[in-house]
C-alpha cells in the first residue's frame, strides 16, 4: 500500500542505507589519513635530516618538504569527509532505522483503522434501520454496537496517529542529517566562508525538492550567488532547481577548473578533452557534470539552446523551446561516447524541427549519461538500471520544474537505456512531467519495482504515452532469461503502447559485442573496415538519420505519433 504521512505529507517508504558500508568507509578514511600522516613524517625527515652539500641533496630536501606540505590539504579534506560520513552513519543507524522499523506497524494500524471505520459504518447503518416497533433490547444492542464501534475507532485512530507522529519525527531527523551531510561535503575543502555563504549552502543543501531550491536560490542576494558560483560551481552546477543558465555556466567553470588542475592520466584526460570539444565546437551546454564519480565520470549535455544572444548578453536557454528530449543510451563504455550521442541529439533537434515546422517546434535535446552502463557478463543489469533510474528521475523532476508544462518532454531509451528510462518513469508516483516515453532497440523493460529501490508496487505509466520500436519476438525473451530482472516485459506489450517500424540497427549480444537487430540488409550492418576509400563511418543503426526508427522518433517528438 502507498501511504502518506498526515502532517508532513511524506510518502511512507523505507529509507535506504547500509550501515556496514558507511562504517567501513569511515574506518578506512581514518586509516587513509593515518597513512598520509606517516608518509608526511618520512618526507619531513628527509627534508630536515638530510645534511650535506650539493645540488642533488638540496633539491631532494626541498622536494620532500614541498610534497609533505602539498599533502596537507588532501589529508585535511579526508578528515572532514570522514566526519561527514561518521555523523551521517550515526544518524541513519538511529533515525532511519527507527523510521523503517515503524513501517510494518503503521501499515497494520492503518488496516485496523480502516476496519474500525467500516465496523462503525455497519453499526450505524444497522442502528438507522431500527424502528420504534423494535423491542427495547434490540434497540439497546444496536446503540451499544455503535458505542463499541466508536470507542474501537477512537483507539485505532489514536494508535495510528501516535505511530505516524513517531515516524515523522524519526524521518525528520534523518532528513536533517541528510541535509547536514550535503552541506558538510560542500564545505569539506575547508575554505573559510562568510556566514552569508554558509547559510546559503545550508539552505540549499536542506531543500528537499527542485521547487524549494528554486525558491531559495531566488531569495539569495547577488553577493551570495556570486560567492557560490566562485567557490562551489560543482555544487550549484548539479543542483536541480538552480536555473539552467546558472547551472550551465557553473558546470563550465567547474570543468575548466578541473581540466586546469590536471592531467589525470587516461582514460580521464581523453574523456575530459572529448567533453570539452562538445562544449566549444558543437555548442553543447553542460547540464550535469560529475568528473570523479566512480566507477565512471557522468555528465549530461544539452544541445539546441543558447545562453547568450548576438551581443553576448545572457539569455534564458529554455526561452522559446517547445520540446525537450532526453536520450538515454544503454551501452556506453565511457564519457567519450557522448560524442556520438551528441551527434544523435543534434540530428534529432533538426528533424524534429523540420517535421514540426507547422507547429513551430523548437527542439532541445539532452544527451544523458548519468549512470554506469551494465556489463552484460558480470553485472546485474537491474542494479545499474536502478541507480540510473534514481539519477534520471532527479534530472526529469528538475526539468519539469524548469520548463513550463506546455513544453513536450520525451524520453528516448536505447537498448538498456530503455530499462533505466522505463523504471524511472514507471516507478515514480507521478509521470515526472514526461509526455512521451520511447523505447528503441529495447531488450526489455522491468515489470515491477526492483526491491531495493521503492517497494513492490507495479509500474505506473499513467500520464505518459508509450512508444516502442518493433523488435524480433525472441529478442526480449533471450535477454529476459539472462538478466537479473527476470523475464522483463516487451515494451510493445505494455497497455496502450504504440509500435513503430524500425528496419534494423544493432543490439547488444549476450557474450558482448553487437548483432543486427532484425537482420535486414542495407545500413543495419556495421561496415568499419579499412577499405580503399578510407574508413566509413560506423553505422548508428536505430538512430541513423536515414533509418526508419530515427525518423519515427523525430515525428513522435514533433507531432505525437509515428510516421
Amino acid at each position, binding site marked *: 500500500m502507498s501511504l502518506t504521512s498526515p502532517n508532513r505529507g511524506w510518502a511512507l517508504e523505507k529509507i535506504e542505507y547500509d550501515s556496514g558500508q558507511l562504517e567501513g568507509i569511515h574506518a578506512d578514511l581514518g586509516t587513509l589519513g593515518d597513512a598520509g600522516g606517516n608518509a608526511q613524517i618520512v618526507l619531513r625527515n628527509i627534508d630536515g635530516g638530510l645534511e650535506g652539500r650539493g645540488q642533488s641533496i638540496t633539491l631532494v630536501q626541498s622536494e620532500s618538504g614541498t610534497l609533505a606540505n602539498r599533502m596537507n590539504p588532501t589529508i585535511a579534506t579526508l578528515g572532514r569527509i570522514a566526519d561527514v560520513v561518521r555523523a551521517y552513519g550515526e544518524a541513519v543507524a538511529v533515525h532511519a532505522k527507527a523510521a523503517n522499523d515503524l513501517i510494518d506497524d503503521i501499515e497494520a494500524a492503518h488496516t485496523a483503522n480502516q476496519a474500525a471505520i467500516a465496523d462503525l459504518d455497519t453499526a450505524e447503518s444497522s442502528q438507522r434501520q431500527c424502528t420504534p416497533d423494535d423491542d427495547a433490547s434490540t434497540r439497546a444492542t444496536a446503540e451499544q454496537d455503535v458505542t463499541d464501534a466508536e470507542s474501537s475507532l477512537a483507539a485505532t485512530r489514536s494508535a495510528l496517529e501516535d505511530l505516524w507522529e513517531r515516524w515523522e519525527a524519526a524521518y525528520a531527523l534523518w532528513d536533517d542529517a541528510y541535509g547536514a551531510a550535503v552541506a558538510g561535503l560542500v564545505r569539506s575543502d575547508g575554505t573559510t566562508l562568510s556566514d552569508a555563504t554558509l547559510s546559503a549552502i545550508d539552505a540549499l543543501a536542506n531543500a528537499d525538492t527542485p521547487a524549494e531550491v528554486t525558491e531559495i536560490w531566488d531569495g539569495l542576494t547577488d553577493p551570495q550567488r556570486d560567492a557560490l558560483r566562485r567557490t562551489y560551481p560543482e555544487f550549484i552546477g548539479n543542483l536541480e532547481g538552480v*536555473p539552467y543558465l546558472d547551472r550551465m555556466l557553473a558546470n563550465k567553470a567547474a570543468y575548466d577548473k578541473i581540466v586546469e588542475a590536471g592531467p589525470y592520466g587516461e582514460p580521464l584526460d581523453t574523456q575530459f578533452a572529448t567533453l570539452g570539444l562538445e562544449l566549444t565546437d558543437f555548442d553543447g551546454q553542460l547540464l550535469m557534470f560529475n568528473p570523479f564519480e566512480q566507477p565512471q565520470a557522468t555528465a549530461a549535455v544539452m544541445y539546441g539552446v543558447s545562453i547568450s544572444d548576438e551581443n553576448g548578453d545572457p539569455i534564458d536557454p529554455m526561452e522559446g523551446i517547445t520540446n525537450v528530449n532526453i536520450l538515454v543510451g544503454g551501452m556506453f563504455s565511457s564519457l567519450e561516447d557522448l560524442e556520438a550521442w551528441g551527434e544523435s541529439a543534434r540530428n534529432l533537434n533538426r*528533424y524534429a524541427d523540420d517535421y514540426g515546422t507547422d507547429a513551430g517546434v523548437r527542439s532541445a535535446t539532452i544527451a544523458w549519461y548519468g549512470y554506469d552502463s551494465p556489463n552484460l557478463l558480470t553485472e546485474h543489469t537491474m542494479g545499474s538500471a536502478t541507480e540510473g533510474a534514481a539519477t534520471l528521475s532527479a534530472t526529469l523532476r528538475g526539468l519539469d520544474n524548469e520548463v513550463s508544462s506546455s513544453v513536450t518532454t520525451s524520453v528516448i531509451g536505447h537498448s538498456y537505456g530503455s530499462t533505466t528510462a522505463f523504471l524511472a518513469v514507471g516507478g515514480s508516483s507521478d509521470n515526472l512531467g514526461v509526455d512521451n516515453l520511447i523505447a528503441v532497440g529495447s531488450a526489455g523493460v522491468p515489470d515491477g519495482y526492483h526491491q531495493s529501490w521503492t517497494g513492490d508496487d507495479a509500474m505506473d505509466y499513467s500520464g505518459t504515452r508509450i512508444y516502442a520500436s518493433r523488435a524480433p519476438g525472441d529478442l526480449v525473451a533471450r535477454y529476459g532469461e539472462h538478466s537479473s530482472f527476470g523475464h522483463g516485459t516487451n515494451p510493445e506489450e505494455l497497455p496502450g503502447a504504440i509500435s513503430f517500424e524500425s528496419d534494423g540497427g544493432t543490439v547488444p549480444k549476450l557474450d558482448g559485442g553487437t548483432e543486427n537487430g532484425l537482420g535486414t540488409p542495407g545500413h543495419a550492418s556495421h561496415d568499419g573496415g579499412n577499405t580503399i576509400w*578510407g*574508413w566509413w563511418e560506423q553505422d548508428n543503426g536505430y538512430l541513423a*538519420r*536515414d533509418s526508419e526508427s530515427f525518423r519515427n522518433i523525430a515525428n513522435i517528438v514533433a507531432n505525437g505519433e509515428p510516421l
Partner: protein
Amino acid sequence: MKKRWQTIAATAVLALALTGCANEGDGMATPTGDELVAQAEQHYLDYRGVTNDIQALIFDGPWPVEVGSFGMQPSGAGCPDGSYKFDLARSTQVDPAQHAALSESVREHLIEEGYDVEGQDLGSGEAKSTDVIVRKQGDFSLLMVTFIANGSVSVTATTKCWPGDRIELSDLMFGGATLSEGYLPREESPSDPLFFGVTPGEPAFGPTPKPTATP
C-alpha cells in the same frame, strides 16, 4: 509505407574515386600538425563543394546555420580511433509543390557527378518525406536530401573518416575558441566563400566575446 529505389550511375568509374585513391595511396600514415590541417582543409573544401552545389539547386539564397551542424568541426563519432570526419546539416523551407521537380534535379545532378543514387519514401500526409540518398561513395558516408511534405527541405552530409587525431585537429583549427561566440555565420548562401578554421579572440561574425556572462 516505405519505398526504396536505387539508380546506378551510367559511368562505372567515379572521378572522385580516382582522386581518393591517389590521396590514400601514400597518405595512410597519420598526418599531424600542418599536414593534418592542410589535408583536412582540402577534404572540407571538396565536400562542401558538393553540398553547396546541391543547396544551390534547391535555394541559392541564405540558409540558416546552426553552430553544432555547421560541418567544419572534426568529429570522431563513428570513426575508428585516430580518424575524424565532418558532419553537416542545413534546412530551409520551400513551396511543397516544388518538391518533385527539386528532388529530380538533385538526383540528376548527383548521377551526372557519378554517384549511385538511392531513394526512400517514408510516412504519409504532412509527414510524408522523400529522401535522395548517396551512400558510402566519394567523400561521403551518407549524403542525403530530405523533402518533407510540409515544405521542409534538409541537406545533410556525413563524410567518410580520414586519418588524423581529431583533438589535435580541433586545437589547430580553433585554438579552444567557443564557436558559438560569434565565430560562425548565422546564415550562409551556397555561393558564399568558404573558410577553414578561426582565429581565437577574433570572432568574424559577432562582437568581441565578453567575459563569462553572468545573469
